[in-house]
């Protein structure tokens, strides 16, 4: 796939900033994708046309039990190789091209396919892994070993849609108005340190965790070296990828709550920790010490989608903007308040989370999945 946005000198750096937005229904009401497209499009200037993408949750109820793989292929050979691999490891319940709308704004698209799969019973037993771990290893193997094949979405009843282009065009390209989900996240990209390409557009996903990210990770290489020790491979040419793996590692494998993950990746300063009550001080010190290599430094605002919920987090210095709005059962989180007001002018409450403060919303019926459940706010 074409790697856009490199300067003539071959340098990749283009200074800029991205946009993120999300819409979440706590009652589980399913909304089509047109609202999230309207929200992200008002922040057009924050992107430069080198990447846009969306994640939708609850969009495949008819295949809720299968893993939904969304795959980019550079060429036919990659598809053949990947499908042979998938056939060896999975029962393919359904496969199809992902429907697109041809348009002049989106060009050079790879082959874009979708598979609903279940791990083959014999293979799964043989591997002695649980289902999620089996899937993660298979995704990792395809993305690392099969040249020109990228499984960029691999959760159940959710999916990632991304491309090189402005996000509003990407939304139309993927016909998002034809899907309905209880949670949508969106990203408009303005690549800074790495090339703009289809695989490098956000969201980044592994199983049902998706990340959209505005910022750049100063600690990328330290984080990468650490996470690669646990079997992850960073091969998508951009820093956000590593956040996805950190979430998978800390939540799924280490069993941390999302609040604890926030205390690891956006840990408070030692001076701030010192002023906390003793018990809290001890807890924060423990997390900083045990997972010191997973502290993410540099500016970021991220939205993390997961089954049944949504989390927003800023770096501890709050070097990127993030606004939260609430109206009845609806939650809106975006880089700018205007991106919320354009879809919901009348809000019950609007506020900016502090740096390092995890803002977590879950579906009313799955409350209790995180430590506190529901929403966690400062003040």
């Amino acid at each position, binding site marked *: 796939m074409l790697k856009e946005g490199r300067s003539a000198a071959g340098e990749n750096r283009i200074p800029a900033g991205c946009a993120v937005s999300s819409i979440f229904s706590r009652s589980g009401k399913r909304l089509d994708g047109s609202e999230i497209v309207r929200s992200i499009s*008002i*922040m057009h*200037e924050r992107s430069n046309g080198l990447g846009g993408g969306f994640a939708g949750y609850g969009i495949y109820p008819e295949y809720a039990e299968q893993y939904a793989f969304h795959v980019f292929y550079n060429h036919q050979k990659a598809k053949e190789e990947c499908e042979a691999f998938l056939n060896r490891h999975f029962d393919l319940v359904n496969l199809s091209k992902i429907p697109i709308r041809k348009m002049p704004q989106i060009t050079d698209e790879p082959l874009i396919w979708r598979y609903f799969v279940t791990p083959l019973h014999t293979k799964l037993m043989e591997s002695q892994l649980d289902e999620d771990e089996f899937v993660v290893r298979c995704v990792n193997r395809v993305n690392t070993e099969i040249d020109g094949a990228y499984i960029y979405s691999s959760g159940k009843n959710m999916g990632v849609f991304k491309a090189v282009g402005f996000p509003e065009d990407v939304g139309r390209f993927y016909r998002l108005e034809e899907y309905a989900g209880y949670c949508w996240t969106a990203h408009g990209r303005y690549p800074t340190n790495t090339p703009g390409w289809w695989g490098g557009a956000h969201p980044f996903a592994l199983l049902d965790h998706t990340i959209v990210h505005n910022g750049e990770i100063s600690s990328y290489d330290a984080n990468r070296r650490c996470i690669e020790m646990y079997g992850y491979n960073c091969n998508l040419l951009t820093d956000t990828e590593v956040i996805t793996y950190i979430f998978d590692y800390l939540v799924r494998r280490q069993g941390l709550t999302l609040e604890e993950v926030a205390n690891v990746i956006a840990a408070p*300063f030692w*001076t*701030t920790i010192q*002023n906390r009550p003793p018990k809290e001080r001890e807890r924060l010190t423990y997390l900083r010490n045990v997972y010191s290599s997973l502290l993410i430094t540099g500016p970021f605002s991220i939205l993390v989608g997961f089954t049944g919920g949504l989390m927003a987090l800023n770096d501890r*210095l*709050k070097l990127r*903007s993030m606004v939260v709005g609430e109206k009845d059962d609806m939650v809106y989180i975006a880089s*700018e*308040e*205007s*991106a919320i*007001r*354009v879809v919901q002018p009348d809000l019950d409450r*609007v506020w*900016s989370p*502090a*740096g390092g403060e995890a803002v977590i919303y879950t579906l009313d019926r799955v409350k209790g999945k995180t430590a506190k459940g529901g929403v966690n706010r400062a003040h």
Partner: protein
Amino acid sequence: MEEKVYALGERYIGAGLSEGTIVLDKVPGNALGAYLDGGVIEVHCNAQDATGDTMNDGEISVFGSTAGYAMRGGAIYVRDDAGYRAGIHMKEYKEKVPALVIGGRTGSFLGEYQAGGVIVVLGIGSEDRQPVGNFCGTGMHGGRIYLRTEHLPKDLPEQVSARKADESDMAAAAPLIRRWAEKFGGDAKALLASSYYLLTPNTKNPYRQLYVTN
């Protein structure tokens, strides 16, 4: 002249404006009133990042929340709260003394690298705790910050010295507080009767020594 209509989220509204008044009732985009040079902007909702970035003269009133930014003249009045880094790198020169008055509370890094001008945080509704976030005045080397509170932040950097403001200290803040109350309908007398802390750079421990001793 037909009045210009501004879109929701439109950036750079009133940038460099030297005269006239703009009244907004939809959330403006970033950098509202950047380089403002004498114009007047009234915002009847929240404003976004970088409001008044590098403004030189004039006045911005926000009937909601926002952040002021790197001013070198003029005044910004905020009815409610301000976000992180409000008043970052404000500076002053002779008669150019910018002012930022915030009715509610602020995020962390209020007045970061402040080099001049006056910041007043009234902390209305936050009387039981400090009205600012962490790291207030980090890198401060000029200007004044007034905090209407009994709760001085615990983590003030060594470059900042704090004292209870006396009557002569309040001379610079009182007209600003009166103007804020007049705009947003507060009780100036009661506000002025409160106790304020005044934060100024600590000349015995200047900021330049943070990195190099020269």
